[in-house]
């Protein structure tokens, strides 16, 4: 039997015992417990240390607003820091640790910070740590030295670096009505909307619906409130138009009534069932939203209000009723409103002892007095708690006479012994989602709370969220909201009867008791009432300045309990009303969300692998694959022991000597069809395609509207009105979108259809002096000689029985062909080509060799067409038609774009026999110790087996004018400096004899 657990009562499964550990110590609890309730039941009151002063802290709330009791959960071999103990459902084997303490929770060196006290008040760090202006610690050095210690002291829990082994998933949901909050108001709303024929989703963050009804101890329709809620939930669960989601927090209200929610699917289980996600990210598109998120209690700020044992009154009530746990042997309540009196009764009913009720109000309602007497105590009205005593747990409070109108204390301070103090300064509706939705909160003087903005078209509200604090109002407003969301009028039908609640829900406007000692507003961040006043003194008076200067409300609880008291203190300092001090705009998430859960199915699978039809062959044949956008492409097919460089040199040499084969399936391919296809191509390409005969291909260049080079590729005319355009691998998507934009938006009169056929075709390029011989061996149905298949010609035939289309074009400068087959035949054709090429030692080559061959030939790719270069920069002027306008023609000759001193394409040759380097710069003079002025950079380089030299392409100021001059490659990042010669970028066979031959 746990020391603080009542013998009976509570919504627990007492037949089962659950064993868990906290800081290595083993404890027992029951299903239905949270870690917080179980620790309290075991008499554990010290559970954490605060952020700045490392003060001992205990459980303060019973829910999502918990600022103190943050623990690290150890599960599946990884740490999950900063989880409120109030939110952790107990399960067998649960392991939790306290945090932000060293060496232990009981003895924490960090507590020395408390000695700093006033020295380290709000914003102190802005005023110091700047260090000397001269000497070894000048500049930022002194600060960075101090910062190392500050960073170690700051932070809360410790994360580790092991991969989170969990699975996360997403779910897309659609509904007519989303109800946020499964308390009575939410349940009623869901039922009303469902009965009106709507598809409803109800999300409740707790494991069970019912909310307040679970621990109010009230009677509804003659039944205990918790039973009433359960039965209502059961009825809803039976409807197939309703989806009830428990353990689901709606945390984001986005445009278009899209809401984000996280369902904790398996966190409460010792082990997730196979294939089940730990958490599920719901994106819910709702026709209308009913916000029934309830209200959270606020504390009163007074000196020593952070001692373990101080707790919100509603939390005490909840623990006593729902978990049958008493937070102490002797409890004092301290309040400015009636709700705490219900807590007193709950304590009494659970068998506990209420020592005193301290009420700042001069008098109280009869109903409250009746509750006090039921709790066996005479309220101390017109008094306030002005201090607490005790070390790591509360030992007593000091009480003094208090004038609620002036805030003045008088008379003697009297100590009261107690080990538990329950405080309340009234309730604040949980308006976060409404604020996210865009409305501005307004202040309600009676409730001393911010109410949500007026409901609009997208959402409506119900229950405590709307400031309807009683159970009867929750039922009525819930039903009306549900009907409203369903487009129906409010109902007059009778609601289940609730015992009338005569309590005065309006709190006295008292949020702080000013007395000597540290009084905490933001418990987690250790922001005191004096800090708020210091901010005021220094001019940080707007609510945003207050927040940023003091860090008030920026802790993991996001100020759920500290916002209103903080504002009240600032308002008082400024001599203005609370609403004039303003409220901050709430932003997603409402409460912290596991980052992996939002990544959902993309956690561990960021982007899909895009594979060519020959992918498996490449891998099986030793290719090292490299990512190219989403694609995977062979880099080299290295033989055992070969380096990448050795491999590509071998591959490239084989092409020049005999024949090689490369997978070009990744090139973008677009079918361009229709009577205006040729006209369209004339407009988007810089050169002319309308003159291209059927059965021929042409190299084309596209510019952007601003005249900068965009993409290049060959386009094949397969029929009068039928073209196959190829693009670079990287630009396949952007080119498609570019073309679609022009057809849809600019030239809707053109009759052209575009279809992406990238995936329809497998492409194998074979290149080298023996390329034709390979084709001759395996191609059926067509001749491939120079006459039948001249340069840039296209023929159709078959290889190994599979239909192919062959175009004779060359990227390498060799006699070369691109063989296209249906993608499903790609591997078959590839293997047939390999077999036919066997006698010529056909060599598969990868991206590196492809690059080397194109560099030798001086062909440009994405490294040169980098979004900044013009056609003229790349000496592609010959492709700019003078006979017609084209996309980019109007702006391509602006003064700065035709400046001769732009960086332009050249070739460079290493003169010291050492490699160059992509991204190395070119300088006219200098050294690694004295870097010269950059005149350009190398875009690509390789060892040219043909020239037996390291060569490269470069963009160099002035371009061609520098041919034949000497310069230096300057690559300080790789510590390389050496002489180069600037030459034409056409290194190899500039006349093109080989590819035309």
């Amino acid at each position: 039997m746990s020391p603080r657990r009542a013998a009976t009562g509570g919504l627990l499964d007492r037949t089962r015992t659950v064993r868990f550990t906290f800081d290595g110590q083993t404890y027992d609890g029951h299903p239905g417990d949270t870690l917080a309730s179980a620790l309290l039941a075991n008499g554990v009151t010290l559970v954490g240390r605060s952020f700045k002063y490392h003060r001992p802290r205990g459980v303060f709330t019973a829910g999502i607003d918990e600022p103190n009791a943050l623990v690290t959960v150890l599960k599946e071999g990884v740490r999950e820091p900063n989880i409120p103990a109030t939110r952790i459902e107990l399960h067998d084997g649960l392991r939790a640790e306290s945090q932000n303490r060293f060496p232990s929770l009981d003895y924490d060196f960090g507590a020395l910070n408390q000695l700093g006290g006033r020295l380290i008040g709000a914003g102190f760090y802005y005023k110091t740590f700047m260090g000397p202006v001269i000497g070894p610690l000048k500049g930022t050095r002194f600060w960075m030295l101090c910062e190392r210690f500050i960073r170690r002291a700051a932070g809360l829990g410790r994360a580790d670096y092991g991969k989170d082994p969990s699975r996360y998933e997403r779910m897309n949901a659609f509904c007519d009505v989303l109800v946020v909050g499964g308390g009575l108001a939410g349940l009623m709303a869901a039922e009303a909307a469902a009965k009106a024929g709507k598809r409803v989703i109800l999300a409740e963050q707790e494991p069970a619906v019912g909310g307040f009804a679970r621990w109010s101890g009230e009677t509804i329709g003659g039944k205990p409130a918790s039973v009433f809620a359960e039965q209502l939930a059961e009825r809803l669960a039976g409807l197939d138009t309703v989806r009830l989601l428990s353990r689901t927090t709606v945390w984001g209200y986005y445009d278009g009534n899209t809401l984000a929610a996280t369902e904790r699917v398996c966190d409460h289980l010792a082990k997730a069932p196979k294939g089940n996600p730990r958490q599920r990210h719901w994106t819910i598109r709702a026709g209308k939203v009913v916000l029934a998120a309830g209200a959270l209690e606020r504390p009163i700020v007074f000196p020593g209000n952070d001692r373990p044992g101080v707790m919100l009154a509603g939390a005490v009530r909840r623990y006593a009723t729902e978990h049958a746990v008493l937070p102490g042997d002797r409890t004092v309540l301290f309040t400015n409103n009636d709700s705490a009196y219900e807590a007193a009764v709950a304590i009494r009913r659970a068998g506990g002892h209420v020592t005193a009720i301290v009420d700042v109000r001069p008098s109280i309602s009869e109903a409250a007095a009746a509750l006090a007497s039921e709790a066996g105590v005479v309220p101390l009205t017109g008094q306030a708690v002005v201090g607490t005593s005790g070390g790591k747990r509360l030992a007593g409070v000091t009480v003094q006479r208090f004038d609620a109108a002036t805030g003045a204390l008088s008379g003697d301070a009297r100590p009261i012994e107690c080990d538990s103090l329950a405080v309340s300064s009234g309730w604040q509706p949980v308006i976060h989602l409404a604020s996210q939705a865009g409305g501005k909160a307004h202040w309600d003087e009676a409730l001393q709370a911010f109410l949500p903005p007026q409901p609009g078209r997208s959402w409506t509200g119900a229950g405590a969220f709307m400031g309807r604090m009683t159970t009867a109002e929750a039922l009525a407003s819930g039903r009306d909201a549900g009907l409203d969301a369903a487009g129906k009028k409010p109902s007059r039908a009778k609601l289940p009867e609730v015992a009338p609640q005569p309590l005065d829900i309006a709190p006295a406007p008292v949020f702080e008791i000013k007395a000597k000692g540290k009084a905490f507003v933001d418990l987690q961040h250790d922001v005191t009432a004096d800090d708020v006043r210091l901010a005021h003194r220094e001019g940080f008076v707007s609510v945003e300045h207050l927040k940023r200067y003091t860090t008030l409300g920026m802790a993991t609880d996001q100020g759920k309990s500290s916002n209103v008291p903080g504002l009240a203190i600032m308002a008082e300092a400024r001599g203005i009303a609370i609403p004039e001090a303003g409220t901050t705009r709430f932003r997603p998430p409402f409460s912290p969300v596991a980052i992996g859960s939002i990544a959902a199915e993309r956690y561990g699978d960021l982007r899909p692998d895009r594979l060519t039809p020959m992918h498996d062959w490449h891998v099986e044949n030793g290719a090292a694959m490299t990512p190219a956008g989403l694609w995977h492409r062979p880099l080299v097919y290295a033989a055992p022991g070969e380096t990448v460089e050795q491999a590509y040199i071998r591959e490239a040499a084989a092409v020049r000597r005999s024949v090689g084969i490369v997978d070009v399936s990744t090139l973008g391919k677009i079918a361009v069809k229709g009577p205006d296809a040729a006209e369209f191509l004339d407009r988007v390409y810089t050169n002319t395609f309308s003159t291209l005969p059927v059965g021929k291909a042409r190299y084309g260049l596209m510019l952007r509207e601003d005249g900068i080079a965009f993409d290049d590729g060959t386009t094949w005319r397969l029929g009068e009105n039928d073209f196959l355009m190829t693009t670079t691998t990287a630009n396949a998507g952007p080119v498609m979108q570019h073309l679609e934009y022009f057809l849809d938006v600019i030239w809707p009169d053109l009759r052209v259809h575009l279809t992406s056929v990238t995936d329809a075709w497998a492409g194998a390029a074979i290149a080298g002096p023996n390329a034709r011989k390979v084709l001759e061996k395996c191609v059926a149905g067509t001749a491939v000689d120079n006459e039948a298949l001249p340069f840039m010609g296209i023929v159709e035939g078959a290889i190994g029985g599979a239909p192919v289309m062959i175009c004779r074009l060359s990227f390498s400068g060799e006699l070369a062909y691109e063989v296209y087959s249906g993608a499903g035949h790609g591997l078959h054709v590839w293997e047939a080509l390999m077999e036919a090429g066997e006698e010529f030692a056909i060599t598969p080559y990868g991206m590196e060799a492809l690059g080397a061959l194109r560099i030798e030939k001086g062909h440009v790719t994405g490294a040169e067409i980098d979004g900044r270069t013009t056609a003229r920069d790349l000496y592609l002027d010959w492709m700019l038609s003078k006979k017609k306008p084209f996309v980019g023609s109007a702006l391509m000759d602006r003064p700065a774009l035709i400046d001769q001193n732009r960086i332009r394409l050249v070739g460079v040759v290493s003169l010291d026999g050492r490699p160059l380097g992509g991204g190395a710069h070119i300088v006219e003079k200098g050294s690694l110790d004295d870097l010269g002025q950059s005149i350009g950079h190398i875009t690509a380089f390789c060892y040219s087996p043909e020239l037996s030299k390291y060569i490269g392409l470069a963009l160099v100021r002035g371009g061609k004018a520098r041919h034949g001059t000497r310069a230096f490659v300057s690559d300080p990042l790789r510590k390389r400096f050496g002489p180069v010669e600037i030459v034409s970028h056409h290194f190899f066979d500039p006349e093109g004899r080989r590819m035309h031959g």
Partner: protein
Amino acid sequence: MAEYSALSLLKNALSGNRDWKPAWRKPAPKPSYDVIIVGGGGHGLATAYYLAAEHGITNVAVIEKSWLGSGNIGRNTTIVRSNYLLPDSIRFYDFSVKLWENLSHELNYNVMFSQRGVLNLAHNPGQADAYIRRGNAMRHGGGDALWLTREEIARKVPGLDLSGSARFPVVGGLLQQRAGTARHDAVAWGYARGADRRGVDLIENCEVTGFLRDGDRIVGVETSRGEIRARKVGLAVAGSTGRVLKLAGIDSFPIESHVLQAFVSEALKPFVDCVVTFGGGHLYMSQSDKGGLVFGGSLDYYNSYAQRGNLPTVEDVMSEICAMFPSVARLRLLRSWGGVMDMSMDGSPIITKGPLPGIYLNCGWCYGGFKATPASGFSFAHTIARDEPHAINAPYTLSRFERGAVIDETGHGPTPKLH
């Protein structure tokens, strides 16, 4: 006003912290000034500071429609760096880093500039070459840059997914050691206090509603707190540039306003030391001194003045951070926010005299505004005071778009959403 120091902290602590004075005055606007700076964000405050400190022009008002620092200075990911590719950018941002290095002393306000380094991860050979090109450009421009191998990265940044089987395996990284992070709000407050101490009037809750004209010339502003005249009016209202220019009758301008979201996790003990960027997508992350992981990604991709982010972008960013640091999946997102960016047509800012007589313009900061704050204020103050640009902002003209002299770091052309 008293200097801030460890000694003043101690003295004040002994007197119960009751003697601290406001960090800046809250004056009512005067009828006229030599210079009005519209916009009390980082750039506007820095401009006012340098007008006073560098040019002796102190009859200056900064007018701010909300609270000081309420714009993007207070809603960014706090990164300071100059790891740029193009010479104009390197010159400007390197100048800025130099100002940052002495800023806390200059302002007598700890802006917490911490040179913890910015590391750009490269994931394939082409990307590595592109980063090396950039690093070499930085070195040739007088800045610092290092290339790190995968092994060096593993030692420097534990927790990164450096496995060969990663979807985008890391092949190396570009490190700028002098880069780092600073405390964003402190920069605004430090400049505000510094300007105020030199006599500049900082006027909050004062919204510009129109411009006063004398013929073509702008001679002041109409505000929610009355007319204020000035010989020169500088606009530093990034995020609202379009709106303010419309008040001056300029209806079309090479800027689009877009939302950029930023994110912070719950506070943790030290997890990552430097700023890291992911090249397999678009993501940057660092850890604040308080312990939160601060990170962001791409724009929301459409025109907006709403400071409201969208969910798909949140999901994209979370996916990328998990790909970079797989253990982050289990940590929790605490807060997100959205800022409105002035996205220019080439991704670079505009700091210039004009476009109307009497007006000076500082805008188009895209993602890069925070790190630029000192250099932007410095060069804008120079431009206003001398009626000609400083060498570092000379390329950032408005006419460059017509001339084709764009400064396009990403190579995406006039597609603002991609810069």
